[in-house]
C-alpha cells in the first residue's frame, strides 16, 4: 500500500510540493549557494561560516536569543496547557472568547503592539529583557494555542483526566504525567513553533530597543552581506538541531493512532 502511494501521482501533493519548492526551498538553496561563494577565488568555500563563528558576538547573541526562546516556550507551556485543559474540561462559554482573543496577535500590527507596550508597561518591566519572552508568547499565541487545542481535541481528555485523578494524581501530576505525554505531538509542535518564532523575531525586539540574534545579523549585514546570509542559514539549522535533540531526549511512546 505504502509502495503504491509512493509511485502513484498525486496532483494535490505535487502542487503543494511545487509551491513549497519554488517559494521556500529554491530561495533557501539560492541563499545557501550565495553564502558559500568566495568572490575572491570565484569558487565555493566555508569562509563566511568560519568568519561568522569566529565573530566575538556570534555566540553571545545566539545564546541570548536561545535562552529567551527557551523561556518563551516555558511560559507558553505553563500558561496554555493548564488553561486549555480547563477550557476543554469545563465546557465553559469563556472558551469561545479565549479562542477569539488568541487570534488577536495575528491582526494587531507588531508596530502598534510595540508602541502600546512602551506606553503601557511600567519602567521596571521595560528595563528587563525578560519582557521579551512574555511578548514573544503573545506573538506565538495563535499558533501555540491551536496546536495544543488540536491535541486536546483528539484525545478522550475527560476520561483519562478522571482516571488519573481517581488513581491518586493531583492536577499538576495529571497534566505532567498523563496529559502532556499523551498530546506529545502537539506539545512538540508548540515547542517548535514558539521556539522558532521567538528565535527569529525582529520587529518587536528592535522597536523595544533590545539586541538579539536577528538584530545583530541585520547589523553585521551592513558590512558583510555574505557573512550575514551564512549566519542566517546557521540560525535555521541550529533550532532544527535543538528540536531534534529534544525529540530524541523525549522518546516516542506508542499511543493509539500514533504508532
Amino acid at each position, binding site marked *: 500500500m505504502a509502495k503504491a502511494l509512493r509511485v502513484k501521482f498525486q496532483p494535490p501533493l505535487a502542487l503543494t510540493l511545487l509551491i513549497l519548492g519554488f517559494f521556500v526551498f529554491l530561495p533557501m538553496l539560492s541563499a545557501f549557494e550565495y553564502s558559500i561563494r568566495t568572490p575572491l577565488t570565484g569558487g565555493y568555500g566555508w569562509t563566511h561560516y568560519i568568519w561568522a563563528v569566529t565573530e566575538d558576538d556570534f555566540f553571545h547573541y545566539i545564546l541570548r536569543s536561545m535562552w529567551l526562546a527557551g523561556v518563551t516556550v516555558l511560559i507558553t507551556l505553563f500558561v496554555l496547557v493548564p488553561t486549555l485543559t480547563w477550557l476543554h474540561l469545563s465546557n465553559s462559554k469563556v472558551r469561545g472568547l479565549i479562542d477569539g482573543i488568541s487570534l488577536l496577535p495575528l491582526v494587531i500590527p507588531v508596530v502598534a503592539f510595540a508602541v502600546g507596550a512602551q506606553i503601557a508597561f511600567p519602567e521596571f518591566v521595560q528595563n528587563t529583557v525578560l519582557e521579551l519572552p512574555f511578548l514573544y508568547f503573545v506573538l506565538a499565541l495563535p499558533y501555540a494555542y491551536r496546536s495544543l487545542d488540536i491535541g486536546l481535541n483528539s484525545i478522550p481528555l475527560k476520561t483519562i483526566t478522571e*482516571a488519573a485523578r*481517581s*488513581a*491518586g494524581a493531583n492536577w499538576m501530576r495529571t497534566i505532567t504525567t498523563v496529559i502532556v505525554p499523551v498530546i506529545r505531538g502537539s506539545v512538540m509542535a508548540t515547542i517548535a513553533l514558539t521556539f522558532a518564532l521567538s528565535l527569529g523575531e525582529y520587529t518587536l525586539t528592535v522597536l523595544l530597543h533590545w539586541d538579539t540574534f536577528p538584530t545583530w545579523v541585520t547589523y553585521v549585514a551592513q558590512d558583510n552581506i555574505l557573512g550575514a546570509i551564512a549566519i542566517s542559514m546557521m540560525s535555521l539549522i541550529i533550532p532544527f538541531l535543538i528540536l531534534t535533540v529534544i525529540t530524541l531526549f523525549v522518546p516516542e511512546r*506508542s499511543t493509539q493512532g500514533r504508532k
Partner: protein
Amino acid sequence: MSSKSLSLRNISKRFGTVNALDNFNLEVGVGELVALLGPSGCGKTTALRVVAGLEHQDSGTVLVADKNISDVPAHKRNMGMVFQAYSLFPNLTVEENVAFGLQMRKVTKTVRLKKAHELLDLVGLDSQSKRFTHQLSGGQQQRVALARALAFEPEILLLDEPLSALDAQVRVNLREEIRRLQLSLGTTTLFVTHDQEEAMAISDRVGVMSHGKLEQIDTPDALYNKPATSFVASFVGTMNRIPTQLSDGHVQLFGKMIPALKNGNESGNVIALVRPESIVIKSTDEDANAKVLTRLFMGASSNIVCQTKDGTVVQSLMSSDKSGDLHPGSTVKLEVTNKEVLVSNA
C-alpha cells in the same frame, strides 16, 4: 485489602433545572457489591461520581467508614474507578498503567511493578504487560482498567458501566470475573449499570433508581419477586400489566379471585402486575379465555404472547417442551399461579 463501608446521606445535586439526585440515601456494607440500576438520566452515574469526588453534591454528606469525605478531593479519596469508556493511558504500557496509582502514592518502582504483575496475573493478562493499550481488545482493556483500579488497594471500588462497550459474550465473562475478584479481595464495590441482568447476576443488593431517588434497594431475589413499587415491578424483568377490579382486597384474574398486594391507596380499577412465568397456559377449546398470537422459541423456554377476550395482551414464559402445541391462533385458557398479586393504580 482495606475495604470500608460507604454511606451517602441526603445527597442532592442539580444540573441547571435537572434534579440529578434528590435527597439520595445509600448504605453499602464492608465487602458488599451494590449495583445501582435505572434508566438513563435517573442519577445513578451522578451518585457514583459524587462518591468518587468527580462531582460535588449541592447538599448532603458522603461517609467512608463513618468519616465524612464530602470535601476531600478526588485524588485523595483512595477509590478505584473503572469507566464506561476505555480510560487507559495510551502513552503507558499495560504494566505502567496498572502501576500508575502506586506511582502516585510514591511506592518504589520494584514494589509497584511487582504489585502490577500480581494484579495482571489475577485478570489473566500478565503475558501482555509490556504491550501498549491500543494493542489490546476492548475486553482486555477493561480488565487492565480493573487491575489498575485495584492495584493500590482502594477503600471502595467504583464501576461506571464498565461492560457496556463490550460484546455480549465478553460482557458475561468479564462480569463474572469482576464478581470473582470482588469476592476474593473483599472490596466494597458500587456498580452502576442500566443492564438489569448484569446487576442481578453479580450483586449482593441492587438499588433501583428513578428521578434521582432510590425506589427500592434489596437482594436481586427480593427485587424481582417482591417489588416495592410499580416502577420497580415494571423496570426489573418483564411484567404483564392486566387491567382488573379491586374489591375486598382481591382482584379477579382469568376468573380466579387472588389476594391483592397494595403499595398505596389503590382501589376500584387497578392494574394487576403479573410475571410471565406466573401465567400458565392450557390448550383447550372449552373455557378458553384467550388465543395465542405468537410463540417465541428461546431454547429451554418459550415466550407465548396471548390476547384475552377483552383485548389485553399477556406474555407467558413456559418450558419449551410443554408449549410445543401452542401455535398462533390456538384457543387457550390462562391461569395465574400467584398466591398474591401486586396491584397499582390504573
